[in-house]
């Protein structure tokens, strides 16, 4: 029988290997695979999660506190009215106030356990008797000032607060009636109890009551434990998983001490337990009687037609008690630390969203009507004498009150989707308890439940070491809540940060190492001296000495106007070519002269060019046209005409014409070679150049009789040679260059691109020999020049020999040492 699976739709039994109901084709086996790994359900013997309900008070929102305050006031007024009219109980709850039924009871303080006493701030009183009648009572969360007291009492105190208070015999009687009604449908149909609740109860509860009337009698009327033990429900109707749980619970009871077993068995679900434990109520609450009244009518109504989810959850609560039994010790520890617990927070926000209830969700989904009834009766049967905690089987009351509230949806906002889906699932889709007897073991929890357990345990460990954080959240979904986020390392700064000195604290060894590092870095960045040559150490004085020698050797011949050295003999071919040009140009022929040298070279260039121009003027009286690509060339032309050639009295515009500066560099020369009239239309006096006498009839470069370039730069000579090569034709081309650029221009003569070359003072001296010694500047410089050149040769030779001697001496010394 136990292997049969009861269809959740038609309640017919099916074979366990069938996937679908053979009567209504409803799926019997779940589609999901068994959970394993991280999502595996919690197994028996696994460490339970610490549940701390003591610090829920600080996290309550202000509106809840206000509601509670107002409810407390109403309770006080109602208590006074009850004292005056004890026979007229008030409704258990108000539909407007969802927590109205959570009124505290003044009498609870007498039985308040230490951990709850620490919450309320009232010293707990010793538990009078375990056998006292108990009753399910609503406990309201106390005020903030009522918390945070010592909860160092033993586990026995956990359930002390759950006991019914003695000053409320009526209430206890009501509780007993509640259980009494489990087996006594007649009392459940008492008009005075049902009248007040029928109007508030939904239809399904009414139907449940009707079903309950059909249950056999035999439930002990006075004690819930007896009710459970003596439940007349046949064991065959009890689901297997409940039967197993009952047997386990009995085993645990026999093994544990009396207090422990009492607390473990009777410990309610976390959420509800938390609310009860945090109740700082001062006065009894007669309104709760109403909640039991409807429960009286609810419990017998165990028809299998429609079972609400919350009621199904209640059917699975006993297993959670078993699970919570193992957690009682840790729970007390956590509560004694006075630190808020996340599980409690969750439980407070949503009473169903507790660990214990989460365990019971799946069974509730599987339970049908009959199964639920059997379950409930089975629970009553396996609850022994310590039915005090079982009397706190308040989820029914709470759920009723909860559903009666207008803000029910808002309280479910934090329920996980799985739980929400379970709650919202239609009863017809719920499998039977038998079908889930194996998969919904008491410790079988889903992954998110397990995750919550782990988080809670971690947080409770953290919170056990740090005081509670009463910080009120200012924004977000937790706005208005205080102490929601637990304090701990990494979560918040618990104390004033330690002041550290800004001074570097180093030891002597570290300082020594730092100094060593600095030395290494300094050595790396220090320049490495390059080995210098010892022979150059006296260069400064040697330089002064050489300068003095050269200066004296030059000044003396110039000052004395000596002619010790004869002019060079023989005419090189390049100079000879220039000489031929100077002597062969036509009479009064136009000659184009390019002045492209720097003023610093005036002495050399004039000495080199003056003999040729003197001879050429003397012999051919050419018309000279000067142009310069150098900015200072124009004034150097004037200096040249008025200096070395002053004796010829050449007049500008008549015998010579200065075209001035030719801009554009190589492009300017190229343009001038192609079209000189357009490129240089004016002379220095800003008059038309090409209409003057020197340029009369000249329109192109090839019409000049000769082209002479006076330059100290080989590049200038090369430019003139390159850019005028195609334009000048067969016009003789002579370059008068400086001595420093002559070697570079010599190849152009060898390649016959130029007709002659006059290299510096040497070339001028040659020309003077063929010009009767005129103008004589080369001759005046020649002795000094010759001495200077001899001195240079002597110094170079002497220096070389000196270095050779030094080198030989070093080598000999090195050879002798070897």
């Amino acid at each position: 029988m136990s292997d049969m699976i009861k269809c959740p739709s038609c309640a017919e039994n099916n074979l366990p290997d069938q996937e679908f109901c053979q009567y209504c084709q409803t799926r019997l086996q779940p589609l999901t695979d068994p959970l394993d790994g991280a999502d595996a359900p919690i197994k028996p013997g696994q460490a339970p999660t610490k549940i701390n309900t003591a610090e829920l008070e600080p996290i309550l929102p202000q509106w809840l506190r206000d509601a509670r305050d107002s409810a407390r006031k109403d309770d006080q007024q109602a208590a006074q009215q009850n004292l005056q009219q004890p026979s007229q109980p008030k409704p258990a709850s108000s539909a407007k106030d969802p927590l109205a039924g959570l009124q505290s009871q003044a009498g609870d303080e007498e039985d308040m356990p230490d951990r709850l006493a620490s919450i309320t701030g009232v010293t707990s009183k010793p538990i009078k008797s375990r056998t006292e009648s108990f009753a399910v009572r609503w406990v309201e969360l106390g005020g903030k000032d009522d918390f945070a007291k010592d909860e160092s009492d033993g586990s026995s105190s956990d359930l002390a607060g759950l006991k019914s208070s003695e000053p409320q015999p009526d209430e206890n009687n009501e509780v007993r009636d509640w259980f009494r009604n489990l087996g006594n449908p007649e009392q459940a149909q008492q008009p005075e109890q049902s009248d007040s609740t029928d109007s508030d109860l939904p239809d399904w509860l009414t139907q449940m009551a009707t079903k309950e009337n059909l249950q056999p009698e035999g439930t002990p009327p006075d004690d819930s434990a007896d009710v459970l033990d003596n439940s007349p429900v046949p064991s065959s109707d009890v689901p297997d998983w409940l039967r197993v749980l009952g047997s386990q619970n009995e085993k645990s009871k026999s093994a544990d001490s009396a207090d422990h077993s009492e607390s473990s068995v009777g410990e309610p679900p976390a959420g509800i337990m938390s609310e009860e434990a945090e109740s700082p109520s001062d006065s009894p609450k007669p309104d709760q009687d109403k909640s039991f009244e409807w429960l009286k009518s609810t419990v017998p109504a165990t028809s299998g037609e429609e079972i609400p989810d919350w009621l199904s959850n209640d059917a699975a609560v006993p297993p959670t008690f078993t699970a919570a039994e193992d957690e009682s010790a840790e729970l007390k520890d956590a509560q004694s630390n006075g630190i808020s617990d996340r599980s409690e927070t969750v439980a407070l926000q949503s009473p169903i969203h507790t660990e214990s209830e989460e365990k019971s969700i799946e069974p509730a989904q599987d339970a049908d009507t009959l199964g639920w009834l059997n379950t409930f009766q089975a629970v009553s049967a396996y609850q022994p004498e310590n039915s005090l905690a079982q009397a706190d089987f308040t989820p029914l009351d709470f759920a009723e009150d909860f559903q009666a509230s207008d803000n029910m949806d808002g309280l479910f906002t934090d329920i996980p989707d799985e739980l929400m889906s379970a709650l919202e699932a239609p009863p017809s889709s719920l499998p039977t308890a038998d079908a889930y007897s194996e998969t919904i073991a008491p410790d079988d929890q889903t992954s998110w439940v397990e995750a919550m357990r782990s988080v809670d345990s971690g947080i409770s460990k953290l919170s056990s070491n740090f005081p509670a954080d009463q910080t009120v959240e200012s924004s977000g979904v937790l706005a208005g809540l205080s102490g929601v986020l637990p304090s701990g390392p990494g979560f918040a700064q618990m104390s004033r940060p330690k002041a550290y000195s800004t001074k570097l604290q180093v030891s002597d060894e570290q300082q020594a190492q730092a100094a060593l590092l600095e030395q290494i870095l300094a050595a790396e960045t220090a320049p490495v001296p390059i080995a210098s040559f010892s022979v150059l150490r006296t260069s400064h004085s040697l330089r002064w000495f050489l300068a003095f020698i050269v200066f004296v050797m030059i000044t003396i011949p110039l000052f004395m106007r000596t002619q010790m050295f004869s002019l060079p003999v023989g005419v090189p071919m390049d100079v000879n070519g220039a000489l031929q040009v100077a002597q062969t140009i036509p009479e009064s022929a136009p000659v184009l002269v390019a002045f492209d040298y720097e003023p610093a070279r005036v002495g050399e260039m004039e000495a080199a060019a003056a003999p040729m121009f003197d001879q050429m003027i003397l012999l051919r009286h050419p018309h000279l046209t000067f142009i310069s690509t150098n900015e200072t060339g124009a004034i150097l032309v004037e200096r040249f005409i008025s200096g070395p050639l002053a004796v010829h009295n050449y007049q500008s515009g008549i015998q010579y014409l200065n075209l001035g500066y030719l801009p554009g560099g190589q492009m300017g020369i190229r343009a001038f070679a192609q079209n000189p009239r357009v490129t240089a239309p004016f002379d220095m006096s800003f008059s038309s150049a090409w209409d003057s006498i020197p340029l009369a009839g000249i329109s192109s470069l090839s019409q000049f009789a000769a082209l002479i370039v006076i330059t100290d730069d080989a590049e200038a000579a090369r430019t003139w040679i390159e850019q005028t090569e195609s334009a000048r034709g067969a016009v003789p081309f002579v370059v008068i260059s400086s001595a420093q650029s002559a070697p570079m221009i010599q190849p152009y003569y060898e390649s016959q691109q130029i007709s002659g070359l006059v290299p510096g003072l040497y070339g001028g001296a040659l020309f003077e020999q063929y010009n009767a010694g005129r103008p004589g500047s080369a001759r005046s410089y020649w002795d000094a020049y010759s001495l200077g050149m001899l001195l240079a040769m002597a110094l170079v030779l002497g220096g070389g020999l000196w270095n050779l001697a030094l080198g030989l001496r070093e080598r000999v010394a090195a050879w002798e040492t070897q």
Partner: protein
Amino acid sequence: MVFSSDLVTGLLSFLFTILIFSYLIGDNPLFRIAVYIFVGVSSGYLAALAWWQVIVPRLIYPLVYGSVLEKAFTAIPLLGAVLILMKISPRLAGLARIAMAFLVGAGAAVIIAGALSGTLLPQIAATINAFDLSAASARNISVVEVVFNGAFILAGTVFTLIYFHFGASTKADGSIRRLKLIEINALVGRIFIGITLGTIFAGVYAAALTALIERISSLINFIGNY
């Protein structure tokens, strides 16, 4: 006392020559004064030269007094000048690229064409024709001299080019060296290069010596005249 222009120019020349010669004792304020004066005078002279030698005769005058064709041709460089002036504004500096591109392109074309036609090809031809006896006879050069000059020029050219050949291979010991034949020829090339550099140095020394002689001679002449 009347100061002639020759006396003034002679005094200035003597003074600035002494100031420049003071550099022999190192950098000093007198030398700096002379240099700054030269720089300032040169700048002023260049500005005047640019105005009177370039802008007025080659830009303004054609635009004012030139024909239509001259004005049209002058407008092109004027536009180029305006575009180059756009470099003053960073926002319009890109416009100057047009004129600069024209200048760079035209300049490169002129230089390359001139170098090819005026230097490279003629120099190669001259090296090849070093042994041209007919050309040598035309210049009244003996055959021996032609052969010797041609061989010397050819050897100098070849060995110098070999010296600048830096291709090498890895030896067995791991060292990287050129071939032995190339090494020997490169050594000869180094001799030719040394001779060339010595010649250039001699020319530089001769030019500087001539300039020094001229300056000292001018000082002596100035002192002797006055």
